[in-house]
């Protein structure tokens, strides 16, 4: 078994201080599907005490959460030079 944290640890990131993805609290509070919790391959969305929390560190920049989210999720690529650096692709 390889935990997702270990797997993300294999990848190098330049993390920006500000997140390039911004779920809206009021939308997430009222969201029934909450698909972001399982479609994100990096498992960056978490549910704690009924609330959705998102951490952009470790984002693989795939775009799956944007496509899956039933609301309009504010989603951009990180600024130039930031984000994930794949070596094999």
């Amino acid at each position, binding site marked *: 078994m390889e935990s997702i944290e270990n797997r993300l640890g294999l990848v190098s990131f330049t993390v920006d201080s500000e997140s390039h993805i911004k779920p809206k609290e009021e939308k997430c509070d009222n969201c029934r599907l909450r698909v972001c919790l399982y479609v994100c391959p990096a498992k960056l969305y978490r549910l704690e005490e009924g609330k959705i929390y998102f951490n952009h560190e470790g984002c693989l920049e795939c775009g*799956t959460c944007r496509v899956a989210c039933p609301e309009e999720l504010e989603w951009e690529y990180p600024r*130039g030079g930031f984000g994930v650096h794949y070596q*094999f692709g």
Partner: protein
Amino acid sequence: MDRFDAVVVGGGAAGLGAAYRMAENGLNVLLIERGENIGEKSVYGGRIYSWVFEEYVKGFRDAPIERWVRKERMTLLDEKESVSIEYSSDESCSFVANLTKFNRWLAERAEDAGALVISGIKVEDVKLNPAKIVADGDEIECDAVVIAEGVNPMLAMRLGLREDWKPEEVAVGVKEVFKLSEDEINSRFDVESDEGVANLFVGYPIFTHGGGFIYTNKDTVSAGVVVRVDSAMNNMIEVYDVVEKFRTHRDVAAFLKGGSMIEYSAHLVPEAGIKGIPNTLHKGNVMIAGDTAGFVLNRGFTIRGVDFAFYSGILAADSIKEAMDKGDVSSAGQIYEDKVRKSLILRELERFRKALDVLENTRFFDEYTRMMVGIMNGIFDVRKESNRLYDVVMDKTKGRKLRMVLDLLSAFRGL
């Protein structure tokens, strides 16, 4: 500052095809890539069809090719068993490569040809009439812009060139790379050092739209899964978990044993074929190419994206050149539109329109996969009394023969 004939957004196969070809044709071209280094944002499964590079790229034989694919394996998986068929040939039309390295090599070729390639800068916006891009607080005006930003069409959407993908139109692919020695790979996969294997899987652990893959690089192996986003949503598939289930299946683990994981990556891939192509591929002199335009063909057992991406870049470059030669550069967008609609890319996507319906049918991923594995089990599971093939097949297909025959016919026609 120099005035550029054209600016290309994105340094994947599509953008690099455009920049390389324009530079070869003597145009003054600038390519801007948001990644700190070219290639570090591209992710794919593993194999590239070589025709377009053989035809268009000088010195292609020096490209960072890992292995030429000599064996194609298709595996049906259930929880504990598997059935594989293998096709092997001493000729090859495709090679396994690391896309990061391959794109980097292409960028060097484009630079050698005279293109200016800048990385680490994100294009914020593209504007029309006159065509220009906005990046780093500056505007750069030019005669034409090629948007090759990949599958997430953020700039193309803002320009109204295409809508965002719906969950049923894209799949999320997750890939893991394992380090193994070259000799170990050769013996495990029964190949020589320059020979590679492409192995696709259907069934476990997804049992719906998508599947698994393994590709042999020189001294690494790529393995992973692809799941259509709507199926992941509807079946509550935990994507980070499903790739682990795949990796730890006995018949997958056997290939990876002892290898250490060295990379984890994820990327979307267009799955809508011809239906995912927008009505128009240009606005004024701004054109879209590669994944942004949806140029990917998935037939279930083969997937083509990199060769189409590069080729669409070539077509964009040739359109711009043609328009300039005519002395009417403003016609480049329309020329591109016409060229693509008549090209191999659209012909291929059109030819496999019916494949979309076949691949929509979840029975292939679940019921029929289990059935085939069950039939094999019936034949080979000998405990004192053996089963006759006829009885096994009759038993496993009970009550669903007609539907199955019709489904198989549709598969023969469509794929």
